[in-house]
Every structure is written in structure tokens, then in C-alpha cells.
């Protein structure tokens, strides 16, 4: 499958890759605004550091594990493209674009898949534990799952992953590989790390809703690259995916707001932001296989389902702090299974769902693909999480949690808007500390006076 490079397709994939990279900071702000002020930096850092660790791993061996020649449909050969060896050549092409454009595009998928999980363990995880988790989870869970779903036989290697090729599930841009995967992992990790000390007893409202809205906006913007970029070219498929990404998201936002209006009395901005993300997640697997009207419907389903699903954690008592399960696992399942019903033969995928007269095969394939990823991810994440918890430790002390993970894990605070200085320059360096410690001082005149 070697064609010539198309500058137009390459331009589209390169900019899409940059858009997908921007999604991870977008996610960081979306998550970061939702925690309390004392944990905002840690929340941001969990996403940002993932861009560092997974970015490096992807180049070293991640791309190769995902898209190298398949070892039995389960994982790509990690040595084949280790260090992206040989891919700078003009001949290295995937479809109509340079291989490295594809590598970059998929790199950003790997990054955000891992970052998504962090929402489950807000405000209480050790930063070291999380960093190790990004390395292990990317290697043991995401890179294989990406292989299963995204590596088609013959596209980047002779043989690809079993979900794409054997089961034949449709996952246009990663509903299974990314959202169900991250959602299942989030549930496992929330169980391993345990509830926040104040969960259920103290109110923990978002500290900065403008940050949440900014995150939602960047996510939506970037998601056009995620979905429409997955066409790997600037063509009709991309345009369909683009429109569906607009349609489902708009519908899901409206749906979530309607649920809130009816259930809680008022539509909220957090609801709008959450609805946006739910819609984006829902349409991700389906962006190339449904019509715009189908996308509207998926949006409504995802919006309503997720709006209710975020309440599960309170009912069941697990502390998935920022609702990764409620939004990504549930939204991903809605979208993945909806394909079985709503796939439109007139769409680029050309498959007919049950409502378009197709048989139950596609629905069954969708179910199998989703279940495979869900189960594997949950089990493997439990194992990885427990391993980290038992060795390095995955949870800060109660005292640190109460005073805030920003201080304990990063020695920083998010905001200092006051014009008053409450601090003094210190350090063992060249500067003299100005910090006064009363007990270091000689007996004071005051004390002398008082003892008289």
C-alpha cells in the first residue's frame, strides 16, 4: 500500500496531530479547574508529565509496539521501529502521508489515553507513583490496545491487531482503544488508590470554572484533529467525521443541560463542559460510520447517559474524582455499541447497522471489541496499580492530602493573587534566609521584662 505523498493529506494530518497534542493540556485544564485550588497544579502536572514520559516512550518503542509487525495479533514487534529507526526516509509512507506524520499523530493519541486516567485519582496520588504508572500503563496496556484496534493488516506492517482485523469492530478514532480503555483503568485505579479523605463528607466544588470551560473548548477544538484527522487525509471521510464531531457534541451539550434543568433545576456550566466531552467521546468510534442525524442521536444518548452515570460513584462509593468512568467509559460504550444500530451504509465506513437493515454481526463485533479492551484494561490496571501502591506508594499521607498535593508533591501553590507578601526568601544558597524563628533568637528583652 505505497502511494505518493499528498501535500494536502500531509498538511491535514500534521495539523491534526498538533490539535491532538493540544488536547492533553486541554484535558489538564478541564480536570484542573474541577479540583480544589490546593490541588490544581498536581492535576495539571499529571497530564503534562504524560506528554513527557509517553512522548519519549513512543519514540523509543511505543510506536513499534503499536504498529510494528504483529506478534499474533496481540502486540507489534517492539524492535522493528525502535527509536523510529529508518523512518526519516522519503520512502517511508503510510497511505498518502510520510510515516513520521502518522507516528506523530498516533503519539498524541497515546499521550492523551494515559492522561485521561488521572482524573480518577485527583488530589491524593503521589506524583512519583503517577509517573511510574504512565510508563507501565502505556507499555503494558495502551500500546497493545492501540495495536489491537488501530493496526490494520498491511497499513504499517504486514499483520495487525486482532480487534481491527479478526473481530472487525469499527473504532474510527479510538472509542475502545482510548476511552473505554482509560475509563476501565480509571475505575481500577480509583479502587486501588482509595477515596479522598474528605469524599462524601466535605464539599469539593470546582475551584475555577473558567479553567474547566477553557479545557472543554480546547478539547473540542483539538478533537476535530482527533476524529477528522483519523481519516488520514483531507477528503470526504474527514469532512463527514468533522461534521459528526460538531453534531454529536452540540447535541450532547444540549442533552446534558436538559437533564440538569429537569433534574436539578438549573443548567450549569459544568454540565455544558461535561456534555461537550461526553458527546466527543460518544462520537469518537462512530465519526466515520454514521450520518449527521445519527451523530445527533449518539450525542443525545451520550449526553443523557453520562449525565446520569456521573452519579454512580456516589451510589456505589468509589471515588472516581472527576468522573472518568461516568464520562469516558460510559460515553465510549454508548458510541461503540451505537454503531451496531446506527451505522449508515451511505457513510464512509459503508456498513449498515440494525436500524439500517444490517444484521446483528456488527453489533456483536462492537460488543466483543469493547469487552476485550474493557476487561483487559481493568485487570491489568489493577495489577499495575497495586504493584505501584505496594512498592513506591501511590497515596500521599493524610496530612499532605489535607494541606494539598500541590505543596506536598510540587512545593508550589497555584495562585498568589494577594499584594501582601507572606513569605521570606530562604534557601541554603547564596541568599541569607530572612525567616525568623523565635526559638533561634537569644532570650528577648520582652521575656526578660516579663520574668522580672
Amino acid at each position, binding site marked *: 500500500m505505497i502511494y505518493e505523498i499528498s501535500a494536502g493529506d500531509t498538511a491535514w494530518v500534521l495539523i491534526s496531530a498538533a490539535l491532538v497534542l493540544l488536547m492533553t493540556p486541554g484535558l489538564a485544564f478541564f480536570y484542573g479547574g474541577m479540583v480544589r485550588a490546593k490541588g490544581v497544579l498536581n492535576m495539571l502536572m499529571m497530564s503534562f508529565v504524560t506528554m513527557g514520559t509517553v512522548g519519549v516512550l513512543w519514540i523509543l518503542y511505543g510506536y513499534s509496539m503499536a504498529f510494528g509487525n504483529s506478534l499474533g495479533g496481540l502486540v507489534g514487534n517492539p524492535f522493528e521501529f525502535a527509536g523510529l529507526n529508518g523512518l526519516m526516509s522519503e520512502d517511508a509512507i503510510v497511505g498518502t502521508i510520510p510515516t513520521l506524520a502518522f507516528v506523530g499523530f498516533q503519539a498524541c493519541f497515546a499521550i492523551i489515553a494515559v492522561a485521561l486516567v488521572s482524573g480518577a485519582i485527583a488530589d491524593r496520588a503521589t506524583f512519583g507513583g503517577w509517573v511510574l504508572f504512565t510508563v507501565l500503563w502505556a507499555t503494558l496496556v495502551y500500546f497493545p490496545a492501540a495495536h489491537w484496534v488501530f493496526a490494520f493488516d498491511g497499513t504499517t506492517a504486514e499483520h495487525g491487531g486482532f480487534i481491527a482485523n479478526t473481530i472487525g469492530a469499527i473504532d474510527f478514532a479510538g472509542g475502545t482503544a482510548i476511552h473505554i480503555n482509560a475509563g476501565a483503568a480509571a475505575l481500577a485505579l480509583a479502587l486501588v488508590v482509595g477515596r479522598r479523605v474528605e469524599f462524601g463528607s466535605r464539599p469539593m*466544588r470546582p475551584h475555577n470554572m473558567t479553567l474547566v470551560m477553557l479545557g472543554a473548548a480546547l478539547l473540542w477544538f483539538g478533537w476535530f484533529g482527533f476524529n477528522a484527522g483519523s481519516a488520514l487525509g483531507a477528503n470526504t471521510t474527514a469532512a463527514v467525521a468533522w461534521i459528526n464531531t460538531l453534531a454529536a457534541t452540540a447535541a450532547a451539550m444540549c442533552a446534558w443541560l436538559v437533564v440538569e434543568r429537569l433534574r436539578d433545576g438549573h443548567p450549569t456550566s459544568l454540565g455544558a463542559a461535561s456534555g461537550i466531552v461526553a458527546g466527543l467521546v460518544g462520537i469518537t468510534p462512530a465519526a466515520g460510520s454514521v450520518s449527521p442525524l445519527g451523530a445527533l442521536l449518539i450525542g443525545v444518548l451520550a449526553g443523557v447517559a453520562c449525565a446520569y452515570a456521573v452519579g454512580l460513584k*456516589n451510589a456505589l462509593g468509589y471515588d472516581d474524582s472527576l*468522573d472518568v468512568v461516568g464520562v469516558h467509559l460510559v460515553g465510549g460504550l454508548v458510541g461503540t455499541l451505537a454503531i451496531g444500530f446506527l451505522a449508515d451504509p451511505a457513510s464512509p465506513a459503508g456498513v449498515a447497522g440494525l436500524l439500517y437493515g444490517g444484521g446483528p454481526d456488527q453489533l456483536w463485533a462492537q460488543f466483543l471489541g469493547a469487552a476485550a479492551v474493557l476487561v483487559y484494561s481493568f485487570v491489568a490496571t489493577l495489577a499495575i496499580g497495586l504493584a505501584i501502591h505496594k512498592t513506591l506508594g501511590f497515596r500521599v499521607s493524610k496530612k499532605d492530602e489535607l494541606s494539598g498535593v500541590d505543596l506536598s508533591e510540587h512545593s508550589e501553590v497555584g495562585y498568589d493573587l494577594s499584594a501582601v507578601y507572606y513569605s521570606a526568601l530562604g534557601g541554603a544558597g547564596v541568599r541569607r534566609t530572612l525567616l525568623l524563628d523565635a526559638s533561634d533568637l537569644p532570650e528577648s528583652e520582652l521575656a526578660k521584662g516579663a520574668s522580672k
Partner: protein
Amino acid sequence: MKLVTAVIQPDSLEDVQRALVKYGVKGMTVSEASGYARQRGHKEVYRGETFMIDFILKVKLEILCEDSEAEPVVSIITASARTGEVGDGKVWVTPVESVVRVRTGEVGVAAI
């Protein structure tokens, strides 16, 4: 000398300030506070979870004045901060033993 302290509605600050200045009060110190009392707080909802915010934003005024001024100052505040709604707040007077103006070191009434 006396210290008149008032906890009032934030929206009343400007009216109180005008009235006091008009009367001849030359200085005051203001800070933000939250009050819990008869006035009920409000409800917030995030992802379906309801939060009750018990404490309501108030403004706290502190005015140092001569003994004889305390009473008129209290009445001026009371009159200009009154909206008639629950939550209008309290004004109270405490004794002050000495006052110093930092800039000059003046003490007592001259320092106010």
C-alpha cells in the same frame, strides 16, 4: 476612644461610606467577612451534587472615633445600611485604650 465595628451587606458599603464621610468621619478600615445567622445561604449544584453554602458574604467596617462620636456613628451606619431584609447585620462598640498614628506618632484623639 471607641471602636465601632459593623458587619453589613456588601451592597450597602457605598451608601454607608458616603453617609459617614458626609458626617465628618475621616477614616475607616474595611474587610471582607462571611456571616452565618438567620439569613439563609444558597444552593449550588455540580454534576448533580448539591452543596449548601451556609456563609454569606458581608463587609466589616471598623471605625475608630472619640467617645462622643460613637453613638452618632452607630446611628448613621444603622440608618444607611438598612435594607429591611434579614441579613442587614450588626453594629457594635468596644472600648479602646489608646491609638497611635504610625506616620507621626501622634496619640489619642489626634491620631484618629
